[in-house]
Structure formats: C-alpha cells, structure tokens
C-alpha cells in the first residue's frame, strides 16, 4: 500500500480499479463517447473501457471538443470514476469540472510508474491524496 499526495483540481471521492495510459489522451477520437471504450488505433488499451475506472494518463491533448466528450461519457454513465494526471491541461480540467468527475494532478511521485493496470486505487479528492493498493 502506498499513499501519494497530489493537487486537487475537482473535489470528490472515488475508489476502483485503475486503467493506465502511458500516452497522453485526446478524448475526441481516442474514446467512444457512447461506450467509454478506447478506440484509438494501435493504443495498448484499445478495446478496454474507462467506465467506472480510475483513469490515469499523463495529460490531455488534441481537440478542445474533448471537454464535451468527457461530459458525454458522464451523461451516458460510462465515465471514469476519477481522473489522475501527471499535469492536467484546460481540456481535461474543464471537462471534469462540468461533468463533476474528481480530478487530481501534480503528484509528489510519478504515478505512471507506480500505478499499474487493475491496481485498486482510493482517490481522496477532498484531502488531496491517493492510496494505491
């Protein structure tokens, strides 16, 4: 078990299995808004869904329509329970704010090396830490 402190961007609490992308994510194009499945060609996680997961990736990229894709995921009940970034940028921040998805970034250690796929993660976006089991 490991506790890592980070910065809270959107408050909340979540726990669940992690899904970890080492590559930045462009929500428009990479993730199907109806199912939450990662559809990007050649992506190591292609075919897996972010639904109900703790979605870990370095940062967002691509079209700013990505914020609306995050919102569509939430409305379609296929959104991740929380998002953890190395460093969040405006597409992800705005997407999580309007969708009320807990969001943290700027951790004291490299989450991409510590958190593995299917690890159980507790996200405390009130007090600003995560627990990786």
């Amino acid at each position, binding site marked *: 078990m490991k506790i890592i402190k980070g910065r809270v961007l959107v408050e909340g609490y979540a726990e669940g299995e992690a899904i970890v992308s080492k590559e930045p994510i462009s929500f428009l194009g990479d993730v199907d808004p109806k199912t939450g499945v990662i559809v990007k060609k050649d992506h190591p996680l292609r075919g897996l869904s972010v639904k109900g997961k703790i979605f870990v990736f370095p940062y967002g990229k691509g079209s700013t*329509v990505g914020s*609306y894709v995050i919102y569509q995921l939430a*409305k379609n009940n296929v959104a991740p329970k929380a998002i953890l970034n190395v460093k969040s940028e405006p597409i992800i*921040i705005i*997407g999580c704010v309007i969708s009320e998805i807990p969001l943290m970034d700027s951790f004291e250690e490299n989450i991409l090396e510590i958190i593995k796929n299917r690890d159980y993660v507790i996200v405390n976006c009130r007090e600003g830490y995560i627990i990786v089991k």
Partner: protein
Amino acid sequence: MYLTKEEEEILSGEYGPEYQKAMKALVKLGEAMGAKRLVSISHAHISGISYRNIGDAGLEFIEELSKVKVKVFSTCNPAGFDLEFWKFLSIPRDFFVKQLRIINALSKMGVKTACTCTPYYIREPSFGEHLAWGESSAVLYANTVYGARTNREGGPSSLFAALIGKTPYMGMHLSENRKPKIMINVEVGVEEQAYASTLGFVIGEVAKNRIPYIKIRFSSRNKLDLVKALCAGVGTSSSLPMCIIEGVSPEAKSTDLSSVEEKIRIEKRDLEKYFTKYSCNENFDAIFLGCPHLSLDEVVSVQKIVSKEKRKVKYPVFLAVSRQIYSRIPYSILEEFKKYGIAVLRDTCLVVAPLNKMKISSVATNSIKHAYYLENIHGVKVRLCKTSECLKIALGVNL
C-alpha cells in the same frame, strides 16, 4: 485567485445557477493554471457547436445555459450544415433538428449565430485587445496578425467566458508569454494556399509548443489569405496559440530575439511529403475550398478561373464562406457559380458535417487542416493540391 466583489457574488450563486456554473469553471481553470485574476474581454468566439461533434450531451449542456444572456459580443464556429441550404445536402432530419436546437439556444443567449471559423471578418480585433476565442486557426490569426490576446479556448470555456465577459488572466494575455523560442527561416517562396497551409503544419511540428519567429517571403499580393492558411496548418499539428511573422505581426518589430533557443530552416522538400501522403487520385465526391472560410478575394480568384472555362464542373465543388462574406459576393458571381454547378456554403465546412450520411468518401482540397481531419475523423480519402489544381480536377481541364 483574486476575485472582485461582483465576481464573488456570481460564484456564490447570487446571479443564478447558470452564471455560477460559468464562474466556477473559469475560477477552477484559472487556479489550476496559476492565474492571479480574471481579465475583461471584448469578444468571445464559441467553438464546439457542431452536433456531429458534441452530441446530445453537448446539446443539453448548451440548452441548460440558454436561460441567461452573454455579457460581451459573441460569435460561434461552423455548424453541421448551411442553415439555409441543408435540404440539398442530404442532411438527415434528426441531425438537422438537433443542430438547429443548438443554434437556437446560442441565439437566445445573444450569440451572433453567423457560424464561421473566421470571426475576424465579422469584427476585426485591435492591437492588445483581450479576447476569449475557441477555434485554433482563428486564435492563431488574432494573436499573429492583429497582436490581440487570446488563449486557445475550448468549447465550454469560450461559452463560459462569453457569459461572464471575462477569462482567466494567463497564458497569451501576459506579455511575458508572448516571446519567441524558435527562429524559423522559410526558404521556399509561398504563393498559394495549399503550400501555405502545409508550411504551417510543418512549422507546428518542428516548433511544438515554442512560439516561432518566422522569416518568410510571400510571393502574392494577398499575403493575409496565405497567413490565414498558414495559421490553420500550425493549429492542426500543434497546440500553439501564436506565431510572430516578420513583416506581418505588429509585435515583430519590437520582439526581443534573445529568448530564441534554436534556429531551423524549412525547405521545399520538407513540404513535399504531405502532398505524397494525401494523393488520392480517383473519382471525387467533392472538391472543397474554404478552410478557413474564404475571403472575398479568394472567392473572386475562383470565379476568374471558372469564368475562363465556361463549363459545368465534373465533380461537386463546395466553397465555404461566412455569411458576412457571402453577402458581399456580387450577384453575378453567385449566378455564374450556380450555372457551372459550384455551391457556395455558409455556416459550415466538410469537417463538421455528417459526411457518411452525405455519401462523401473522397475529397480534393487545398487545405491540410481539412485533409488531416477528413482522414482522421471521417476516414475520407483525400487529395491535397493547389487551388488551381482542385479546380482543374473539377472542370476536367488543363489550366
């Protein structure tokens, strides 16, 4: 972040839940990105309004906010079809109705719903003015050509900025972030849109997130049309909000080049590979010109070519313009286009249209931005070529 008394009141919900939602998002964004306060803007340009891209959730989101009005002059990006011409484009009824609901909601909020990616043809920004614009090509054009100040806003953040009349004071709004980090010498004369946009794409790839200082020779009288194409290319391959172009950008003369870390050259062969990449050569479902939306000069140059030939086009030709430019096209030119089978579209472009339903699967265009998104988002086969070659293909002649 420092907030004025009024901003605090909006945040606490005294002006209603819609303004509260907008303020909360702007404050969260500003705090996350290290802004110290908000800054007043004079024009918001709202992107992310095509039903093709934002779906039912985006539609509901905008409708929920439409009970209140925007605080500043606001325009919006292209929609899924020409609002007056949609029936001829095989747009499905459901798509039409939902797109119209998005437009009506924006209109109710007081947004000027002439849907275009060229808001600078509607209202020209002035030097140093603060804006909150979505649409990457327009953001680049505003910072680069006018010396106005805007970040690359997203759909929701540009809408929130329109409702509040302010945006977080950060990024491109601050002089210290408008310094060049890379010097680019362009060693190929640029005289035409396809090459200008491809040059922009290459600049975005090499500069990445470093603002480039560009030395370039434009061999055309319509320099700004080429800069417009270049900006669209830069915005496609990078997240850059601005370039500084010698002889174009008002900030170029006073730019201190001591911040430049690297110098590179771009030659003709750096551009050629993209023409090989997008070299579909078959029957075309559409020839598209107008990414970004055409200026009046660009429309007239198309007319000059087709009027020499005086024949009907072999493949459907679409020109895309804003309503402002459309209203300035002489009637005789519109009649001539009609006679030869050239459609002039307003409010839209092929990237935001439901192409699969319109049965369009191969396109020739002079814009690398269109080539890139048509292939990546719509799976369309593309030929990227000069404006004159696009028309040559359309007319089936040697020009």
